[in-house]
């Protein structure tokens, strides 16, 4: 079945005149009923194309086709009208959408320095503008401090052909500030005409300001808390260590002044008093160290590990006897860290390495460093000690996670947590490789100093 194209189709014997030919040749038409399909989309041949004196195969007949009630229009006009209606519809849709979204539109002609604003734009800029007013008047609508920036942004966009976006302020009649986001682009490209939009972003700006204020308040509170914690732990440790010192010293003075007169049992008990108070003192000191490592404000700077180790060996008299047990593979790398923290870490690791050896074994500690990745340094502290059993692997870095009894190996259970915390605060990582009975190799990775040459 043949589908008819859109249009009016006259029924004539043996002949179908296609529609759309506004200058149809004169034809002979028998007098027939004109069957026309009527629709708005139909195009009809103009009346003048019909000949009054039409001839047909069956003889001359006069056919006068009068334009019916259907309007007479030509195809191009119809298309034009259709396009206009479509444009009108699109404009309406855009206008409604823009209004709902609160977006004002503007059309700036740099050649004539005149601008057309949509109603929303006019209300956003808070001015009653007459159409065709000047570019300068539009600029004057903005906050005096922002005028130059807006002007510069628009002119830059015009020069580069790229779109611009600038946030600026308008002062409302009641003296408040309104923030606008102004966007625009030359259109057509590389012309002196710019089209753009503007939107009220006051709510977002306010929210951002409130947020920023809250952040700075919280930061201040946090800094204050940290400072209070510091002074708190400082005085706690001082106030706790004072009576401990007294206990220890009274016991010591008794032993010194009255020792010869005392029964051995009395001497023994006084010594126990000394031992207990000294132990508590060490605990308090370690807790203070942990609190410092956790809370104090630090700056990270390049540190020479060689120097840190030299200081440790010099300032710790208890390490005097073990100096030959410690071998350092020099030169050690430079790391980015904090000197006091690094001193604390290495001291703890070294003293652990010297302590946890099998009875009768002379400890041997080795310290070395190597490049790890492009910008990190890995430091090793290895020993020949008793090693760590796999079932204890996750305990040793925990607070008071001590494995051994006091009798075997002394310690507070705070040493390794301090090391771990310190390394973490210097943005590093820590771990170990160990085999029970076969020594342990502790390692930590810290950012290294970049080689500039």
């Amino acid at each position, binding site marked *: 079945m043949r589908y008819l194209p859109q249009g009016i189709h006259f029924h004539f014997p043996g002949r179908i005149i296609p529609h759309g030919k506004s200058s149809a040749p004169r034809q002979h038409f028998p007098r027939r009923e004109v069957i026309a399909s009527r629709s708005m989309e139909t195009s009809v041949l103009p009346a003048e194309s019909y000949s009054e004196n039409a001839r047909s195969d069956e003889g001359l007949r006069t056919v006068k086709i009068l334009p019916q009630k259907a309007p007479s229009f030509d195809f191009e006009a119809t298309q034009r009208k259709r396009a206009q209606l479509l444009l009108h519809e699109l404009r309406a849709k855009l206008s409604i959408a823009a209004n709902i979204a609160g977006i004002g539109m503007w059309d700036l002609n740099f050649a004539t320095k005149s601008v057309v604003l949509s109603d929303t734009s006019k209300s956003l800029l808070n001015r009653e503008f007459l159409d065709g007013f000047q570019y300068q008047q539009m600029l004057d609508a903005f906050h005096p401090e922002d005028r130059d920036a807006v002007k510069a942004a628009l002119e830059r966009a015009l020069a580069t052909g790229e779109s611009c976006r600038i946030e600026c302020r308008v002062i409302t009649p009641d003296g408040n500030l309104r923030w606008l986001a102004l966007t625009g682009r030359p259109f057509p490209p590389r012309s002196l005409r710019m089209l753009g939009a503007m939107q009220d972003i006051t709510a977002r700006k306010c929210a951002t300001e409130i947020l920023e204020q809250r952040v700075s308040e919280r930061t201040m509170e946090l800094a204050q808390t940290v400072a209070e914690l510091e002074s708190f732990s400082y005085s706690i440790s*001082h106030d706790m*260590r*004072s*009576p401990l*010192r*007294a206990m*220890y*010293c*009274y016991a010591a*003075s008794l032993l010194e002044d009255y020792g010869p007169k005392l029964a051995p049992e009395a001497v023994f008990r006084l010594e126990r008093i000394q031992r207990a108070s000294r132990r508590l003192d060490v605990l308090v000191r370690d807790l203070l160290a942990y609190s410092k490592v956790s809370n104090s404000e630090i700056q990270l700077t390049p540190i020479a590990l060689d120097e840190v180790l030299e200081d440790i060996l010099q300032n710790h008299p208890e390490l005097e006897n073990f100096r030959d047990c410690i071998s350092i593979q020099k030169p050690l790398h430079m790391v980015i860290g904090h000197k006091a923290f690094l001193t604390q870490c290495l001291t703890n690791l070294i003293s652990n390495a010297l302590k946890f050896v099998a009875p009768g074994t002379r400890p041997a500690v080795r310290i070395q460093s190597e490049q790890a990745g492009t910008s990190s340094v890995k430091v090793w502290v290895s020993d020949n000690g008793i090693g760590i059993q796999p079932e204890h692997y996750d305990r040793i870095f925990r607070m008071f996670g001590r494995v051994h009894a006091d009798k075997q190996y002394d310690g507070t259970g705070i040493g390794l947590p301090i090391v771990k915390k310190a390394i973490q605060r210097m943005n590093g990582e820590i771990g170990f490789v160990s085999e029970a009975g076969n020594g342990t190799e502790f390692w930590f990775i810290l950012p290294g100093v970049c080689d500039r040459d």
Partner: protein
Amino acid sequence: MVYLAGSLRSRLTHTFMVCQRVILLVEDNEDDVFFMQRALQKAGVELPLQIVMDGQQALDYLGGKEAYGDRNRFPIPRLMFLDLKLPYVHGFGVLTWLRSQTSLQNIPVIVLTSSPEERDRQKAHELGAKAYLVKPPTREMIEEAMQFLGCKE
């Protein structure tokens, strides 16, 4: 070292038979006072000990104010042991004040404290303390201090 003008000193010695050479101990903790006394005794220091128990009292003593007006009973000390954590006026406050007093600037001060903090030691040094002693004081420390300061008994 001589702190008082020769004539004044001889007059006082002559009239009141009081030894001007005292050691001032500024310490608020009774136990620490005991241990200090014991250490001084063990080190064989014979100078009498004057004790004040807070920072304000220290300023009053040194300034000859309030109860300490009588310079016969409360002479300017030969040497001072100064604790830092004191009530009312902190040890550093006493040090600072001392530096501003021309007549008292020459008194050697040994800071005696439980604080092992380097920053405290640094500050004490800046404020003119001659030595920094971390408690508890022992006989050896006192002997060393006396030698260092060149104190004669």
